[in-house]
């Protein structure tokens, strides 16, 4: 049932682990070398919006009368979304510009559906791990761009 293995495998393994650790370390050290937030729009960025089921599209935001929702959504956006979509939702190398007309004209229900289901094949993970109210808070925050201005209460860094 068991296999005896001579300990000669260990130095090779350690070397491999060290190499992995080293690659990791160097990469992390270079994290600040370049600002990669160069907006880039791919044709598939907004196609997912067209695929939202009608029932989901018609869903209303239960927090639309919650005055704190957009501010809380701004905080959540900064924590979970800004890495790909840019700190001001202007888009990045990996994520679409969320200030774009296509997004701003989408219904809250459609944005909620995209958040919940992701666009997995194109790199956007599912975010159903955030509780439903938090996802609606993010939708509220995204909808603040419709008026081309972010309310002062939203904690978006300069």
């Amino acid at each position, binding site marked *: *049932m*068991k*296999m*005896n*293995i001579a300990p000669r*495998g*260990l*130095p090779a*393994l*350690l*070397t491999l*682990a*060290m190499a*992995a*650790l*080293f*690659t*990791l*370390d*160097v*990469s*992390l*050290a*270079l*994290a*600040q*070398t*370049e*600002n*990669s937030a160069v907006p880039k729009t791919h044709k598939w960025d907004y196609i997912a919006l067209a695929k939202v089921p009608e029932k989901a599209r018609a869903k209303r935001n239960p927090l639309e009368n919650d005055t*704190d929702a957009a*501010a*809380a959504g*701004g*905080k*959540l956006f900064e*924590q*979970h979304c800004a*890495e790909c979509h840019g700190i001001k939702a202007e888009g990045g*190398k*990996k994520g679409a510009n969320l200030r774009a007309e296509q997004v701003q004209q989408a219904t809250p229900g459609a944005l909620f559906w995209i958040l*919940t*289901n*992701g*666009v*997995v*094949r*194109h*790199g*956007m*993970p*599912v975010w159903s*791990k*955030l*509780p*439903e*109210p*938090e996802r609606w*808070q993010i939708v509220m925050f995204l909808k603040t761009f419709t008026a081309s201005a972010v309310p002062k209460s939203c*904690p978006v860094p300069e």
Partner: protein
Amino acid sequence: MAGHRFCPQYALLRAAIARITAFPSACSLSGQDLKRHRMVSCARVSFLGLFVLLCSFLFCPRTFAQESPYIVTYDHYLEEPGSLEMEYFSTFGTQRGGNDFHAFWVEFEYGATAWWTTEFYLDGQTTFHDSTLFTGYRWENRFRPLQDEHFINPVIYIEYEQISEADKIIKEVEGHDVESDHGDPNAALRQNHNHELEFKLLLSKTFKGWNVAVNPLATKNLSPNNPWEFGYAVGASRPLALKASPRRCNFCRENVIAGVEMYGGLGDTQSFGLHDTSHYLAPVVAWNLPSGWTLRLSPGFGLNDNSHRLLLRWGVSREFSGFGEMVSRLFGGSR
């Protein structure tokens, strides 16, 4: 290369890497010298690596992690693409008929794509009044076959592990694993190594803030004439608050996720069932800090006489975003 423009240390760093990793030709050194040279180079690499790791912890970007509290069970959420999560876990275990132990592992979890996460583990343990050992490594992959969220979300889990019998992290319980397997001295246990392939089907659903996950597993020792072994893990968890507060805070209830998990063995193909198996019930709690750190705690209790009476686990992890992009840039890519 783009990195030069932004980081003056970049060229120096690359030169240092080249110098450190440059080996003389194998023909120019005798076997003993070559071995010694490799050891020295390896030591240099590790020291430089540790130094850079310490520095990078101060400067590299991190993301707020919404990590589940489970330690054994998996839900269907994968690592965000391009993000690296580094984790350290400890398990203190009581041992009847032997010495108590402290087992630990380090985990590097990388989101290769939105549908594939890969992880590398290094395991070790200290048995009190005995010794401390490196016990092996594991390479784990999780694949998400379906794009959208469904009523139940499946993820396929495949792991290769090469661990010695002294491994005590008890990351999963399978077959007829029982407490007495860990009672022998390390000197005896470390002699036997296992090469195993492990398959899990991770089924998970999140509804109204509750996550419920069920993980049946099957393991095959790759040496001949070993049966398939089976086991399970199930878990349920929920954040303490479902709505985020508008202010940035460490102690908000939304940052804490609590739950419970249960895991155990189900025998093997020759004797399937619950006899001679061990089972555990463990409350779990995770605290996700806005600084990017996650702390986890889980006291696990053995449910029958074959189980360790207590497995007290805790862990700390941190997520670094954009890791893939950093590596790509390091090697000249422009991803």
